[in-house]
């Protein structure tokens, strides 16, 4: 995010996608952060006598079938979702981006071919399938969910950074750097990485939102975070048997997922519009 346009914050605030996305994301990240040291109630304490309460001043969103405070559950669930998805994106970027840059630097060579075939291989395993395999052997849990989603993110970032880097390697300014005697590694981090950073950040927000959906799906089928950790997917699974009785238990966690994912996608869209070099050229 260095460069010519980082010091023009107003432009960002005038983009409705970016603004709405940033607000939604900030709310849920804020909830997750606050939950680290404070929640309205202790979600570990069950209180069957207070089960399925409607919203009230004590329980803003009501309580679930064990009498736990729903708002507290949503806050802790936000923490779980965001942590799993964020770490998974991190894993994908830390491994995928260098692989993609490496492949592009050796374009046409056997390293490139090998990395691309590895990508094909990972793409043959949808994240859910990967998670199923890992869970079948190691048992369910948040860490395994992170591993499964993270592995799936690797080829996404590898392909993206390879494609971005390939188009840059043909540019004259890279040629100029080579004439200046700089090697592939140095060119990759000095010239290529900063110029594909926008691309990567936009993709990261998209993968982040996909990660939240995937984590919800995995914990919904019982392969994700395990109790006592609250997670949105598990809350939905628990609510299913009581859907006719207490539909709000199904609606609230679902809305939390939708709003978080929507926020991240809007943020990504806004960032893409704001950092698109074509749009930049028009503005000049």
């Amino acid at each position: 995010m260095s460069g010519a346009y980082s010091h023009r914050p107003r432009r960002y605030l005038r983009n409705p996608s970016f603004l709405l996305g940033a607000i939604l994301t900030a709310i849920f990240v804020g909830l997750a952060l606050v939950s680290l040291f404070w929640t309205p109630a202790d979600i570990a304490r069950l209180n069957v006598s207070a089960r399925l309460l409607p919203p009230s001043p004590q329980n803003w969103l009501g309580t679930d079938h064990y009498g736990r405070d729903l708002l507290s559950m949503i806050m802790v669930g936000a923490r779980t979702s965001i942590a799993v998805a964020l770490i998974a994106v991190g894993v994908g970027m830390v491994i995928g981006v260098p692989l993609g840059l490496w492949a592009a630097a050796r374009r046409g060579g056997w390293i490139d071919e090998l990395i691309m075939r590895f990508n094909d291989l990972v793409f043959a395993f949808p994240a859910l399938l990967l998670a199923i395999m890992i869970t079948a052997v190691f048992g369910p849990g948040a860490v395994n969910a992170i591993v499964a989603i993270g592995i799936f993110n690797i080829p996404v970032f590898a392909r993206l950074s390879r494609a971005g880097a390939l188009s840059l390697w043909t540019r004259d300014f890279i040629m100029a750097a080579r004439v200046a005697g700089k090697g592939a590694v140095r060119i990759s981090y000095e010239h290529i990485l900063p110029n594909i950073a926008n691309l990567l950040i936009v993709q990261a927000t998209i993968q982040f939102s996909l990660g939240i959906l995937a984590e919800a799906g995995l914990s919904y089928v019982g392969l994700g975070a395990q109790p006592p950790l609250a997670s949105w997917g598990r809350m939905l699974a628990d609510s299913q048997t009581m859907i006719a009785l207490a539909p709000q238990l199904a609606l609230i966690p679902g809305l939390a997922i939708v709003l978080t994912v929507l926020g991240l996608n809007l943020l990504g869209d806004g960032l893409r519009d704001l950092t698109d070099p074509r749009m930049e050229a028009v503005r000049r």
Partner: protein
Amino acid sequence: MLRYLARRLLVLALTMVAASIVIFLLMSVVPGDPAQFMMGMNADPAALAALRAELGLDRPLLVRYLEWVGGLVIGDFGQSYTYRVSVSQLILDRIGLSLPLAFLALLLSVVIAIPAALFAAQRHNKAGDISVMGLSQIGIAVPNFWFAMLLVLLFSVTLRWFSAGGFPGWDAGFVPAMKALTLPAIALALPQASILARVLRSALLDTLGEDYIRTARAKGLSRGQALRRHAFRNALIPVLTIIGLQFSFLLAGAIIIENVFFLPGLGRLVFQGITQRDLIVVQSVVILLVFAVTLVTFLVDIAYAFIDPRLRRGTV
């Protein structure tokens, strides 16, 4: 064309071999002793020994791998440890539900997405475009299993148009079977249709900026004619990739949706396999799905060649 085909076929074969090795290592080597894993810590030593012999665990890894792969090629996945029947029989029973479900969802997704994208692209940055894109933005954010629950709440619990789950089987007739698949297919299709519509719209807008669209306009085509005659087919190229990827998402996504609707498909089978620690069932379903995904990727590559003459004549 032939060289292109041969190249894609080779990639397909290599991917399958690599995938089978990964699956084999993960399911048969990582657990240490699969027999112990499947029967649990307190298993009777005699039964354990019998299972080991049945699984052929006393033989070298390479032999076991080759035997497994050899079996796969002729459609023999081995014996299920819990069901005590051949896994191929189990899969055959279940695939009759999962495959039609995925196809139905894919069809729905394409049928919704294409008109939506054309509609939006023709009204670029106008109200119609903005509302279609807004809806699709929400469609992407909705988890399909939650959407499924809402559909059940509305159509089964409240309106009572559809049953909340279960599958009568194809023997019960086409209409009841399709009725049971309708809500699951809609739940699966909606998010995918949203993604597809967005991709197709932006591909259309990209191609509308190409020089050859200007040429088409200069020869007297209206904006709409240029869009339909010149932009659409060219925009299909990136869209095909997405459709291919979606099929694999749908197959895998069906695993979750089947659980929402209690449908006896591959997804249920694999979960039963996990809870019963039936590694053979799990590994069989996984390799089957991986094969399906790889095959679809291959088919998409072939479809490219039909759309794009540059590939057909072997210049790329």
